């Protein structure tokens, strides 16, 4: 048996260390550690609830809008307030822009460059992948980064700046959009659509969004050929490297549901396991501190009761990350979970065939690019300049509320309790907290820990490339985890 400590990981957001034990060329056990702690929950204690909207986005620079939306929803929930339709449209547009930019960045800058590494020299596809995806030097490093920056102009128009906008408020949006700005948003969406259709898919977004199953996807890729479609390029690599056999976890998926408008959600929430869809019971969420450098009750508690008090001395602990569980069990969150819960036929079939794995996680993220851009176009077209974007919700003096949203990486929850106009307790459970959770008191490993079991480890590999693919397939965000 051999032991390895892997880190620092590049091209993930924030700090991550993975300890693995390998036997017979395979990972037998993995322990995932988030080696940093920041303490936002302690920082928010005692603050004015409205000020959470200034602090919360700073939890994470990659999903800062998601954090704002979760905070705004938590306060809104506690007040029983509502935002006007324009406010919801604007919020959905900026949230979607961030989520899609995240998927896009992950694919082009974080995930694909690994296949351009020398470890894959000699594969038929390698020269093509090097040309397109090599870190900092491939064609995509320049053209995809420019396309992303241009797409983020949407934030400039609708939210002032990104990251860390304060436009998203409990009462809706702090900005009224003019007719001219609405047109500008539609042009920017058209520009992004064009990049996706020319490079990412080499096909219309609607065609990709309509792929109905695994054989459909394979037939589409075969017909298209890998030149001129980054998705087809990826599928060729995935096939050759066996990414559908890598990184399978517990196959229990959760989504809070995403992009609410007037009480409906574009992607409905729920839990999907064993081929069945079940309703989500958010009251069954508990955080377990057994393997975390945290003091507090040994009994797992709901976030409303949760405490966050670091304790670096705890012997059995190995991470700053807590272990969230739904009805006592770990769940995987992210684009794959969101789409399987939402019932997209392609993702349902891929999951039925091979479960949650590296390939399927990447396919689900790219599918969301194809599905959400048209939805953004519809929200933008529906904006009514001159109608309100904001409705004063009043100040929060007493009460509690939850903001459950979907960030790019999956389910993000904020729970707030307010007493005498001050934050009494604020608890955050981020997507990567779910996915990169350490073991709970029953010894059940978190989703990534389980997904790493069985990953191949070459005899002379110190940072096994398969381990890197599995880790990156979740698009981890450690700064969120260690808020």
């Amino acid at each position, binding site marked *: 048996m051999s032991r390895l400590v892997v880190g620092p*990981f590049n*091209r993930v957001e924030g*700090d991550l260390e993975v300890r693995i034990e390998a036997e017979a060329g395979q990972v037998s056990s993995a322990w995932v550690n988030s080696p*940093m702690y920041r*303490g936002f929950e302690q920082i928010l204690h*005692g603050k004015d609830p409205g000020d959470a909207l200034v602090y919360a986005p700073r939890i994470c620079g*990659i999903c800062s809008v998601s954090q704002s939306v979760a905070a705004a929803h938590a306060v809104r929930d506690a007040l029983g307030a509502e935002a006007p339709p324009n406010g919801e449209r604007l919020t959905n547009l900026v949230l979607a822009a961030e989520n899609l930019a995240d998927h896009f960045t992950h694919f082009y800058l974080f995930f694909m460059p690994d296949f351009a590494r020398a470890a894959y020299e000699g594969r038929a596809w390698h020269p093509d992948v090097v040309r397109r995806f090599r870190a900092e030097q491939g064609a995509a490093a320049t053209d995809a980064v420019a396309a992303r*920056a241009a797409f983020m102009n949407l934030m400039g128009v609708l939210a002032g700046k990104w990251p*860390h906008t304060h436009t998203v408020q409990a009462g809706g949006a702090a900005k009224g959009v003019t007719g001219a700005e609405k047109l500008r948003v539609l042009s920017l969406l058209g520009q992004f659509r064009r990049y996706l259709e020319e490079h990412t898919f080499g096909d219309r977004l609607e065609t990709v969004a309509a792929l109905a199953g695994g054989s459909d996807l394979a037939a589409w890729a075969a017909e298209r050929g890998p030149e001129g479609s980054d998705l087809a390029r990826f599928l060729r690599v995935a096939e050759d490297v066996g990414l559908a056999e890598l990184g399978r976890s517990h196959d229990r998926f959760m989504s809070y549901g995403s992009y609410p408008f007037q009480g409906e959600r574009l992607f409905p929430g729920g839990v999907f396991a064993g081929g069945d869809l079940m309703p989500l019971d958010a009251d069954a969420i508990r955080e377990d501190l057994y393997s975390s450098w945290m003091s507090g009750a040994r009994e797992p508690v709901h976030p409303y009761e949760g405490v966050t008090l670091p304790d670096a001395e705890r012997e059995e602990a190995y991470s700053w990350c807590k272990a969230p569980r739904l009805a006592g069990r770990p769940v995987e969150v992210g684009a794959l979970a969101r789409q399987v819960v939402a019932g997209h036929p392609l993702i349902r079939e891929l999951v039925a065939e091979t479960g949650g794995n590296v390939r399927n996680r990447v396919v689900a993220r790219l599918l969301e690019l194809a599905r959400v851009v048209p939805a953004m176009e519809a929200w933008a077209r529906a904006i009514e300049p001159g109608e309100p974007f904001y409705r004063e919700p009043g100040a929060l003096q007493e009460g509690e509320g939850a903001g459950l949203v979907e960030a790019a990486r999956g389910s993000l929850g904020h729970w707030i309790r307010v007493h005498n106009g001050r934050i009494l307790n604020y608890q955050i459970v981020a997507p990567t907290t779910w996915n990169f959770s350490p073991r709970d008191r029953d010894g059940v490993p978190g989703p990534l820990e389980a997904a790493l079991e069985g990953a191949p480890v070459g005899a002379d590999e110190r*940072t096994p490339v398969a381990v890197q693919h599995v880790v990156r397939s979740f698009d981890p965000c450690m700064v969120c985890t260690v808020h």
Partner: protein
Amino acid sequence: MAASEREDGFTVLWLQSGGCGGCTMSLLCAEAPDLFTTLDSAGIRFLWHPSFSEATGEEVTAMLEAVCAGETRLDALCVEGSLLRGPNGTGRFHVLAGTDTPMVRWVERLAAVARYTLAIGTCAAFGGVTSAGPNPTEACGLQYEGEQSGGLLGDAYRSGAGLPVINVAGCPTHPGWVLETLMTLALDGMGDPLLDDLARPALYTDHLVHHGCARNEYYEYKASAEVPSDLGCMMEHMGCLGTQARADCNIRPWNGTGSCTDGGYPCVNCTAPEFEEPGHHFLETPKVAGIPIGLPTDMPKAWFVALASLAKSATPRRVRENAVADHIVNSPAKEHDGE
């Protein structure tokens, strides 16, 4: 010949500690040209950046050791995020993965060999949001702790080129601020960067956020916004610090066209130390006897009060009505409305 092919270019090592990664995400929003084209044309080469470099794991730790040993030249050390000294000064709140060594120890070693040391963003400069509230992680900046000089490296620290830590503050910092500072350092002949009294590059702190704000006409007449989404000036009731905040946000656009004030919310002075603890609700202007405390720093208070009341009585109806609406309800008329 591309600049990056000359010798080995101007080498940059970028590390992240107790922040949110937002300054890197902001950097990736650089435009016209994009980030990698800009770096290349200035001959700037990243030895490593956690978000976009190929090297990982032991390749990185070996590179860090080579830099510390002087085998690899380090022109600029960029640190993003606060430096986490806790718990109890051990630095264990942030251990660099795979090394069992606190990040603060790595930063001390690397800063000792860097020609220039840069704090990227307000966290690395002054402590920032991570140091808010009870500062549970003992967070500080590289050479400041709030407004106090000192920080992790100490008041006396000077980088190889004889400069203090350069504070490219902002939460997040603007990609243009970072790239122009690096280019100033990398391109010979442009001389030392001029720094302001908090060691921030003057290239963006010679301006106030107020300069070029689209709400300037409302400011002139003290026609004020009352709730978020109103078009009026946000200084009187909503805590806008644009008349005191040093940054060119309303001259140099964010994400193509925006700024905080364009996005409908007040400037919270995020380029300044201790912006994270204003001592009052962020979206509220503290007042004494109805007069905002935080007046423009270089204007005599009596004058401000006199001018404000004069301006208020001269406010055109158009400006007064639009100030409290979320869209233009009264457009500029051809004829003076004679009110």
